[in-house]
């Protein structure tokens, strides 16, 4: 579909640990890091897209970055904020409207679980009064049914989190950098059965910026660019099972993640078997398990013969969430999707340090999923 190749020439990320810094401050830091990585000045950026869910408007960053007159579009699209900013930046380059474009995602959330209001979701106040406006219940009920249908064990859920914390130890910008083993994770206290406390990510903070270039602009600056072969965003179709649903239709639920992943693979002309490293939304352990199959990397149930044998570890046949994912980095909603792309870019450039996937990986995939049924996926190659 692309008339013009899109290359990632610069990638910048902040620490994802809790600090006093504002979300906007983090965003400026990430943009400057991405520009330095690309070797380009801010004045060279011809189009910018970005946003946060809860930390302010991206277009105000020009006050710190420089008032160059660049067209800067705010994006606020829940968990797909980063992905939507990226798609917009890709389109700016493919259309020829810009030869250098910025995508930035950032956020900073209060501590503790998210705090949704029934009216914002079109629901009767009773759902709040009776204690059902709790996102973690949904994740628990989805994986509960999945385990029943596909024979996934609680220990496999714990092993997903064990891997996340282990990869967090190897990732300098991660929030959770202390190893935890499966037994500790299983014994950390049930939150919503079958999910325990350490199987969940927490709302957090962080910022990521990417500098995208046309082939000609990338040639001018040199460096080690990575090709963004596909970037897509999809919303749910009828039949999906989503958070805060008073009812769901019968039958096997449809998956927006499956739709977005298929679309991204088609656009890239590649398939799941061609991918060397991937980042999958891991709001909690169960999500990573289900998304492996929903995105096409294995059959439903096959996870039980992959995860316990290390297949998704950094040295495994399909490394998943090599930077520790949301479980180790937290969930700053606006930043997570671009964090995944940043991680794949580092892996494909061979710059991932202690967490580098061996064997010179040349293809990567990223996947975000969020409420109320949105998914953003990318395919990248070296």
């Amino acid at each position, binding site marked *: 579909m692309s008339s013009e190749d899109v290359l990632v020439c610069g990638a910048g990320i902040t620490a994802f640990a809790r600090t006093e810094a504002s979300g906007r401050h983090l965003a400026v830091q990430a943009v400057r890091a991405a520009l330095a990585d690309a070797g380009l000045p801010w004045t060279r950026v011809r189009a910018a897209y970005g946003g946060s869910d809860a930390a302010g408007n991206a277009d105000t960053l020009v006050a710190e970055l420089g008032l160059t007159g660049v067209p800067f579009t705010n994006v606020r699209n829940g968990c797909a904020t980063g992905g939507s900013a990226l798609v917009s930046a890709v389109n700016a380059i493919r259309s020829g409207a810009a030869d250098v474009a910025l995508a930035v995602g950032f956020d900073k959330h209060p501590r*503790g*679980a998210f*705090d949704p*209001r*029934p009216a914002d979701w079109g629901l*009767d*106040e*009773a*759902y*709040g*009064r*009776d*204690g*059902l*406006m*709790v996102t973690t*219940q949904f994740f*628990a*009920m*989805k994986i*509960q*049914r999945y385990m*029943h249908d596909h024979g996934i064990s609680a220990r496999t859920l714990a092993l997903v989190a064990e891997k996340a914390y282990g990869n967090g130890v190897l990732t300098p910008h991660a929030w959770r950098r202390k190893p935890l083993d499966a037994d500790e994770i299983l014994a950390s*206290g*049930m*939150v*919503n*059965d*079958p999910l325990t406390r350490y199987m969940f990510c927490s709302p957090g903070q962080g910022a990521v910026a990417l500098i995208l270039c046309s082939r000609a602009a990338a040639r001018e600056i040199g460096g080690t660019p990575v090709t963004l072969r596909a970037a897509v965003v999809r919303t749910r179709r*009828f039949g999906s099972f989503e958070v805060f*649903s*008073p*009812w*769901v*239709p*019968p039958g096997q639920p449809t998956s927006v993640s499956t739709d977005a992943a298929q679309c991204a693979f088609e656009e890239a002309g590649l398939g799941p078997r061609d991918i060397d490293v991937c980042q999958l939304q891991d709001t909690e352990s169960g999500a990573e398990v289900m998304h492996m199959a929903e995105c096409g990397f294995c059959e439903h149930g096959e996870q039980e013969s992959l995860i316990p044998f290390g297949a998704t570890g950094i040295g495994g046949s399909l490394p998943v969430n090599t930077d520790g994912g949301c479980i180790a980095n937290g969930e700053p909603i606006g930043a997570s999707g671009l964090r995944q792309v940043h991680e794949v870019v580092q892996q494909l450039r061979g710059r991932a340090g202690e967490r580098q996937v061996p064997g010179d990986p040349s293809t990567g995939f990223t996947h975000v999923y969020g409420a109320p049924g949105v998914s953003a996926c990318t395919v990248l190659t070296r």
Partner: protein
Amino acid sequence: MEGPLSAVPGTGSGLHGSRCADCAVATYPAGPACPRCGRPAEPIVLSDTGTLWTWTVQRYAPKSPPYLPPAAGFVPFTVGYVELPEGVRVLVTLDILPEDVEIGMPVTITAGDGVPRAGGVAV
């Protein structure tokens, strides 16, 4: 007070649902249009007995507000989706202890003044 979640008068415990005349998609609570095809939906009374499709336990007290804990204080409670013969899975709070709840078990739904509740079927 009658609201969108309360029982249909004269039906005992029946829930107000709706069904699309064209594609037979049933929903709860009742809505004016089919979420699948967008055509008008007709009100129906849903069955009060079904099977448990999935469940979890709310082990910690949700944030108040909006949550209104019982007068005696918060205790963990079970929630789940009940699959009804009309082809709709309804979100309910369960009057079943965590150690007794099981996917596939038969349950009976009752509409009250809040979210529908469901309990085990007496054997």
